[in-house]
């Protein structure tokens, strides 16, 4: 199997990673969330008069808890992707490459007995 696409993706990710390392060491950019910046723009446009019509019903009490929940979200997703891709891969191997396709059916089992 060709690994061309993997190499291209790796190159793209590396370009951004290097750019980030370089930028973060040479500038004092804060790398805050884009939504926080939008909040500032809203304040600027409305002259600071806008008060949110609702507050979040629950907020993670600290940055640590927040990263825990974001990490949990990623872990759940990654687990599901890995499980099913592995399931399909093994299923394909059994059916096509190892010739288990017919043997797994109960009818053919009975005939062979």
């Amino acid at each position, binding site marked *: 199997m060709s690994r061309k696409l993997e190499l291209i993706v790796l190159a793209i990710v590396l370009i951004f990673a290097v750019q980030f390392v370089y*930028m973060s060491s040479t500038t004092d950019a804060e790398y805050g969330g884009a939504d926080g910046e*939008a909040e500032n723009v809203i304040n600027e446009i*409305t002259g600071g008069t806008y008060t949110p019509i*609702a507050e979040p019903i629950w907020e*993670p009490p600290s940055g640590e808890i927040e990263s825990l929940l974001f990490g949990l979200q990623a872990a759940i997703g990654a687990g599901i992707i890995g499980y099913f891709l592995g399931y399909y891969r093994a299923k394909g191997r059994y059916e096509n490459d190892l010739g288990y396709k017919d043997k797994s059916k109960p009818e053919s089992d009975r005939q062979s007995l």
Partner: protein
Amino acid sequence: MHIMEGFLPTPWWQAWFAVSIPVILYGIYKMNRLVKEKREILPLLAVAGAFIFVLSSLKLPSVTGSCSHPTGTGVAAIIFGPAISAVLGVIVLIYQAIFLAHGGLTTLGANVFSMGIVGPVVAYMVYKAGMKANLNFYLVVFLATAFGDWATYVTTSVQLALAYPAGNVLTFAGFMSSFGKFATIFAVTQVPLAIMEGAVSALLFKYVVNVKSDILVEMKVLEDAVVRKLRGNPA
């Protein structure tokens, strides 16, 4: 980055709910029918949903010195179409609104519209156009998911500019002025992230083609001949 809780005034948040709810209902109907007719697609549906889960949890730094996250909805849009992607998007948005104070319940309608509807629709259209033009499949996936991601954040900028036009009166000039400001934050920050999302999505499709291409053919995502070519055994 979704619109924060409470940051869309009346009547905007209700308006976006009104637009999004019919699409969600249609998506739920379509999803139920699909799962009933073809139970074997269920794992792939889970993978597409999980991909949104992973990507939208990764807050990545961008060239602008701020962080945002990709959406991951393009993959679902290509396989299952925009309506079902919208349903998957809702699940992620509710998780983030309730547990992470990221996005919000009042702004859910607007965020579903940008991330669950406009992004997938753009991805779907780019995909169909690209495949018609006979481009390389992985290149088309890259373009479709990258543009879908980017369109999501352009939409967010439009939504905020509509709610907060300069001068507090909704005129075209006021809208454009605010749109420029919000787009600088969201759309510009998103460009490198959209490129990365496109690359990773193409990679995911490579693995799906390798292990379960027959489902993609059945879902009419790919033609049999294209699959054979991608797997390197032309027949």
